[in-house]
């Protein structure tokens, strides 16, 4: 096994089995790190907890819901501005954060009374909202508060409201991934099948594992609507509580982030016979294939093909403009879970960059199987890295840019490596044809920022050139390109709008009359 031992982690020998380098001729039976294990004491991990995974990743993107943490107020940290899962109801779930604010006295005397008061107070403060999710935390789990009983009591007293209880305290798993699992199964057990949805098309899907980061879901919904597909629910970005109760009536589950949401797809297949189709919506060719497959499944491939042709023709010259300028740049692909495999191959194929390392904070071995398969030979794969390992890897690999979260990203900046926010994006959405060009633009801006070039100089030891004036991005990026490319009249930079979602909100879609007759 080609394990890689970090110098900085020699004092934690268990870490050795969490990193591998994919060497020549090696495959998954010889190169796979351990994964989804408890973080080794002494390793300062970048993970989140199981409560975070349940609430902040999967629960809270649901838009028409009061999301209440039953615990100390500090547990609600990852809310204001730190998540970018927008919604079309004025971002209610981002703007408002709710907690019972448990104190020490509640630990001693119990907090069920406090919980009930808070639930009622929250519903009264926001009378238009009739749905609530309550999230257990470490504190309320350890004192044994019966959240389900309190929720049932309130629902009896206030029959117009409905409450979902997610018992996923922080310690209920090695990472946030434990919380993804728990909330998937809890939602399915408690809520799916409790509402009968109105079916308006013969082509009905659940769009699963999509969190509407900076509007990704809006972009994908546009394609589905253009194909005449009814999206019964989105699990969970911009998703509606009651729509998600009707997931059992879909004909197909279209799955994106398998790491966070394959559990509910698997169970929907087992319990309701709804098949699971995995797609990649990042990238031109991958998204095209995803839409084609959905189209073929329903026998409406021509509708998918029309979108593919139109979007590719519109955006390909812009993608290629960036590809010419990004070719051969070294990238560390260090996201949380699924993006390491969503992006590993397509960024190489379509942006021309070389992925020199992949890591996952909370992924399982299954994610590493996909990621290692898709990245290039020689790439360093790390499971649950710590900050020192990240620094050592950057020193060893000398990447031009890394795609990661904001905490390790800020660390990278200190060693003069630019980063893009892989979780919440810089200037998203990044899904869809236009979104993929926006991602390319963000990479270009990151690598060729003139300010970044200045940061590469260390005034304490480097010679500071005095014969050079101000440099622009184009001067930096076009320096070694041929005139065919720099003077091309076909290739051009991103020409979309600052807010590329605005036009989608009032858009009208074709009515497929024959479809209406066959809706079941």
């Amino acid at each position, binding site marked *: 096994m080609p394990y890689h031992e970090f110098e900085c982690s020699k004092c934690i020998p268990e870490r050795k089995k969490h990193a591998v380098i994919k060497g020549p001729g090696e495959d998954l039976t010889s190169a796979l790190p351990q994964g989804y294990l408890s973080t080794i004491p002494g390793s300062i991990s970048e993970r989140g907890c199981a409560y975070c995974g349940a609430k902040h990743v999967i629960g809270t993107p649901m838009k028409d819901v009061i999301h209440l943490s039953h615990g100390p107020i500090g547990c609600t940290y990852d809310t204001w501005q730190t998540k970018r899962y927008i919604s079309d109801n004025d971002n209610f779930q981002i703007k408002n954060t709710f907690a019972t604010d448990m104190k020490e006295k509640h630990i001693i005397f119990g907090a069920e009374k406090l919980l009930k008061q808070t639930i009622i107070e929250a519903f009264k403060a926001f009378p238009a909202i009739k749905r609530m999710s309550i999230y257990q935390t470490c504190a309320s789990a350890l004192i044994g508060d019966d959240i389900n009983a309190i929720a049932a009591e309130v629902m009896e007293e206030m029959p117009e409201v409905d409450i979902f209880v997610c018992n996923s305290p922080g310690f209920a798993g090695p990472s946030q991934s434990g919380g993804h699992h728990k909330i998937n*199964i809890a939602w399915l057990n408690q809520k799916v099948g409790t509402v009968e949805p109105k079916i308006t098309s013969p082509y009905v899907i659940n769009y699963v594992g999509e969190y509407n980061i900076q509007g990704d879901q809006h972009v994908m919904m546009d394609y589905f609507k253009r194909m005449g597909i009814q999206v019964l629910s989105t699990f969970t970005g911009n998703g509606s509580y009651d729509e998600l109760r009707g997931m059992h009536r879909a004909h197909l589950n279209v799955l994106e982030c398998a790491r966070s949401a394959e559990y509910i797809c698997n169970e929907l297949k087992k319990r309701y016979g709804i098949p699971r189709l995995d797609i990649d919506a990042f990238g031109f060719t991958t998204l095209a294939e995803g839409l084609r497959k959905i189209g073929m499944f329903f026998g409406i491939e021509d509708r998918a093909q029309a979108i593919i042709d139109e979007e590719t023709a519109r955006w390909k010259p812009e993608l290629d403009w960036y590809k010419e300028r990004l070719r051969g740049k070294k990238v560390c692909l260090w996201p949380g879970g699924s993006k390491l495999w969503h992006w590993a191959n397509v960024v190489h194929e379509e942006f021309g960059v070389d992925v020199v390392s992949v890591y996952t904070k909370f992924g399982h071995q299954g994610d590493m199987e996909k990621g290692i398969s898709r990245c290039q030979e020689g790439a360093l794969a790390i499971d649950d890295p710590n900050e020192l390992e990240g620094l050592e890897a950057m020193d060893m690999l000398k990447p031009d840019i890394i795609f990661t979260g904001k905490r390790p990203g800020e660390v990278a900046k200190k060693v003069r490596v630019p980063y893009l926010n892989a979780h919440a994006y810089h200037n998203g959405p990044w899904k869809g044809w236009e979104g993929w060009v926006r991602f390319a633009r963000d990479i270009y801006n990151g690598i060729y920022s003139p300010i970044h070039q200045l940061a590469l100089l260390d005034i304490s030891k480097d010679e500071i050139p005095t014969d050079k004036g101000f440099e622009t991005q184009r001067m930096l990026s076009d320096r070694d390109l041929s005139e065919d490319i720099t003077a091309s009249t076909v290739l051009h930079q991103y020409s979309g709008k600052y807010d590329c979602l605005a036009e989608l909100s009032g858009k009208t879609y074709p009515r497929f009359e024959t479809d209406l007759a066959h809706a079941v």
Partner: protein
Amino acid sequence: MDMKEKIEQLVDYIMKNCLWQFHSRAWDRKDQNAGVLTKATQILCGEAVELETPTDRCFWVDAVCLAEAYKSRYPWLAAMSKEEIKQIMQGLHERMDYLTITGSLNLELTDQHY
């Protein structure tokens, strides 16, 4: 190029571009590999494909995309007889089962629950 090298090319395409082979449990992976690769073989050989159930259709859409990619990327496939295609696809199936199931180092494959 010998048979083994050809199979490795076919494996490489799946590993770089597909997701259906990496479902989370061993029994799912067995079903997925069999479902998609059987249908892809039928498509490549010009045989009828069964599309009775939604699950069949799901396998079929992945199989269509795979067969198209193989045809466009590997010209040596067009020179093969039906029997040779079946033989190479059988070899591919066995290799995929080994890489994703029987030889896999993924410790979660045998978990009894999702």
